[in-house]
């Protein structure tokens, strides 16, 4: 039985690294040639990699979220082929070049990127060119540990390489990691790695940075906020959850807040506009495309529900569920992510009350919704526990005056305080 390693190829042209997004198989799974086994993200794309071997998955060698260089073994597969019957070309590859000792048995001849080329440079026969000889490349022997143990080590701030392995075949066990963490006294493991890490700004991080700078330094932001007693909205939500028609959808406060925003935008169209610098015009939109800031494994993205104002509450709930799911899976299409006219960001999910949101470039307003908690609230001269949230609205002062922004925020607050006021305001 031979253990085969599938190494990260260069799936683009000259890419040197990729991040493991998700594993599509588990240890012990049976795989066939070309079965997709792992999803990776490179600087250019997210792709599923097809397994070059058939057999049983022996180990997943890279944790989700980790970025590895081209040539790193991703997965090992027990191919069920006796070692003696290694195909001729593999044997040749091994005997021919000792420098390739660490190379995969199914040698990848291409897609090895610049770093790999350096590592496999052949030594020179003559002495006069020694200056050109690459320093011997001593590959770090990889510490052996299961993915769960690796995660534990990361969580506890333990450097795996510093742990004495006592597990089978020299692997680091869970106990080894816990023992090491106790010895290190918890935080010391973290402190042991003091210093600076330099992270390349690429992909969504770069896009976010660019958008934020563009927005913050072109649109003069004004932020206003208000606390609202949303008890009646929460009661309405509970009632809706018990209703037959909403049984199959995920009903969250965000759905009702989105509805409130649509109603308020209709009454205050200044907030549903964009600034056209070139033509010195304000572009007022009669349609409402609501963006929702979402924290995804790939970073901050803002998927958009198009024509949200034309939707029923039910349709809005369905669209919102689908949109967030797609975004979390990192599969939003360009259409999903563009064309927004107003953005809602729910910072309450992080347990935060309020903040000053930065506008999505080209939009006039953004609403940050804080956490909804029971707080003491004065009701008819008595202090009562009520469901309260904080709404924070940033708007572009070029297009929206304080009076307009305040009226808009006041409308949203009023609808959430008394959902029945929708009947009055629309």
């Amino acid at each position, binding site marked *: 039985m031979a253990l085969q390693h599938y190494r990260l190829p260069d799936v683009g042209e000259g890419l040197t690294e990729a991040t493991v997004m998700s594993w599509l198989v588990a240890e012990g799974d049976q795989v066939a*040639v070309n079965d997709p086994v792992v999803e990776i993200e490179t600087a250019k794309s997210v792709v599923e990699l097809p397994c*070059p071997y058939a057999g049983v998955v022996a180990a997943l060698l890279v944790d989700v979220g980790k970025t590895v260089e081209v040539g790193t073994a991703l997965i090992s597969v027990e191919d069920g082929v006796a070692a003696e019957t290694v195909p001729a070309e593999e044997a040749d590859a091994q005997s021919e070049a*000792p420098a390739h000792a660490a190379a995969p048995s199914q040698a*990848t001849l291409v897609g090895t990127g610049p770093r790999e080329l350096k590592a496999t440079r052949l030594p020179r*026969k003559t002495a006069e060119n020694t200056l050109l000889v690459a320093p011997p490349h001593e590959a770090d022997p990889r510490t052996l540990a299961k993915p769960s143990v690796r995660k534990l080590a990361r969580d506890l701030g333990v450097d795996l390489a510093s742990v004495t392995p006592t597990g089978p075949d020299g692997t680091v066990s869970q106990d080894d990691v816990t023992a090491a963490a106790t010895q290190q006294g918890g935080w010391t493991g973290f402190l042991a790695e003091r210093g600076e890490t330099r992270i390349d700004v690429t992909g969504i991080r770069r896009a976010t940075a660019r958008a934020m700078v563009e927005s913050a330094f072109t649109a003069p932001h004004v932020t206003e906020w208000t606390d609202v007693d949303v008890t009646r909205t929460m009661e309405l939500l509970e009632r809706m959850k018990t209703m037959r028609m909403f049984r199959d959808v995920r009903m969250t406060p965000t759905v009702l807040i989105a509805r409130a925003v649509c109603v308020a935008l209709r009454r205050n169209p200044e907030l549903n506009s964009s600034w056209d610098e070139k033509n010195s015009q304000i572009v007022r939109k009669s349609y409402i495309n609501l963006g929702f800031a979402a924290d995804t494994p790939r970073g901050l993205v803002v998927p958009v529900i198009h024509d949200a104002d034309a939707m029923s509450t039910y349709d809005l709930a369905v669209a919102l569920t689908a949109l967030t799911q797609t975004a979390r899976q990192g599969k939003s299409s360009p259409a999903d992510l563009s064309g927004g006219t107003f953005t809602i960001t729910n910072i309450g999910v992080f347990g935060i009350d309020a903040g000053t949101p930065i506008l999505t470039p080209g939009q006039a307003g953004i609403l940050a919704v804080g956490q909804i908690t029971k707080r003491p609230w004065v009701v008819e001269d008595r202090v009562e526990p009520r469901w309260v949230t904080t709404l924070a609205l940033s708007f572009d002062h070029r297009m929206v005056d304080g009076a307009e922004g305040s009226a808009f925020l006041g409308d949203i607050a009023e609808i959430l305080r008394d959902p029945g006021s929708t009947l009055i305001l629309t």
Partner: protein
Amino acid sequence: MTAPNAWTPRIVGPDNQGPDVPTADVPTADGPTLDVLTPDVATSEVPTPDEQADGIETVQLLDAEAHPQRHATYSPQLSVDEVRHAYATMFLARRLDTEGTNLQRQGQLALWAPAKGQEAAQIGAIAALRPTDMVYPSYRELAMVMHRGLDPLAVFQIMRGITHATWDVEAHRFGVFAFVVGAQTLQAVGYGMGITLDGADEVVLVCLGDGATSEGHVSEALNFAAVYKAPVIFLVQNNQYAISVPTAQQFRGAPAARAGGFGMPGVRVDGNDLFAVHAVVAEAVSRARAGEGPTLVEAMTYRIGAHTTADDPTRYRSREEEDVWGARDPLVRTERWLREHGTEDGFFADLAAEGDALATDLRARVLALEPQGITDLYEYVLAEPSAALAEEREQVTAYLAGLEGR
């Protein structure tokens, strides 16, 4: 490297010694229609995605639902058997295309340019040629390579980066893949002008994409072809994208519309309609053979996969668009037609099995490929190397000899 070709090429179209594709037999509206298509089906009014706002007609003989369409100038010219053969090559090419993508993802190929979705445009066009007619491909014509009976391994050798070409261009009447976008159009026109000088009755089919029409030298080629009445058919596979740039951002005048400006007919055809592509190219071939000069055929198709394995189409086009075009898949359409014309499940099952076996065999042969010596670079470009080139070759050889393990 000299392993036998593991599959049997299907012959479609006029044979080597056959007569010209008969001009006289191209029926008119009230002329005869071959009975391979039932003529009693009403014309569909549903607009197709390729009927664009520029007012140019798209020739279609089989719509997306595999319903026959009547056309005033063109009619289907393929028998059921010929369609079966054409479908087989299209199907097998797609199977190997998938294998190519997978092999690239496994580090065995430097690059792969998927042809998925363009099979009807390729096979419909090449099937209208005689085997003696010259073809200048771009770099996505795997189906054409297979149609000409070449070992598909040849394409994999190129994409593995170990050789420029493996086949004898003259013997197979099939040019090398052109990676300089559009360069093949000049070669094709030059070859076509040579045919005229020789007084031969051959024609040249040259493949290019919508993106290539934005290249300056393609305009030069079109102009020369028209001026010299070269027997050249320019097959523009308009797959809607030049890498990530949609056609709307590439040109205002469609390739079919521009042909008139160069002084040659331009015909737009549904590139996912095997019958229409074949009929339109066959007519262009007749004209060229009769000395009436070049034609530009714009085959409206869609690259279902990425431009190459190095890009991610989800970043520049919508799922909705992919769904619309996915419903127009040439393989699905041709399969439906075949089933409606008495082709049984067994045919498709056998083909699927043949495809899997072909892919497995090809995979094994790709893994066994040896890199060629780098000094091969100096062998094939010039018949007699220049002094400078010979010196360079010596230097490279000496350098390589100074390395251990060689």
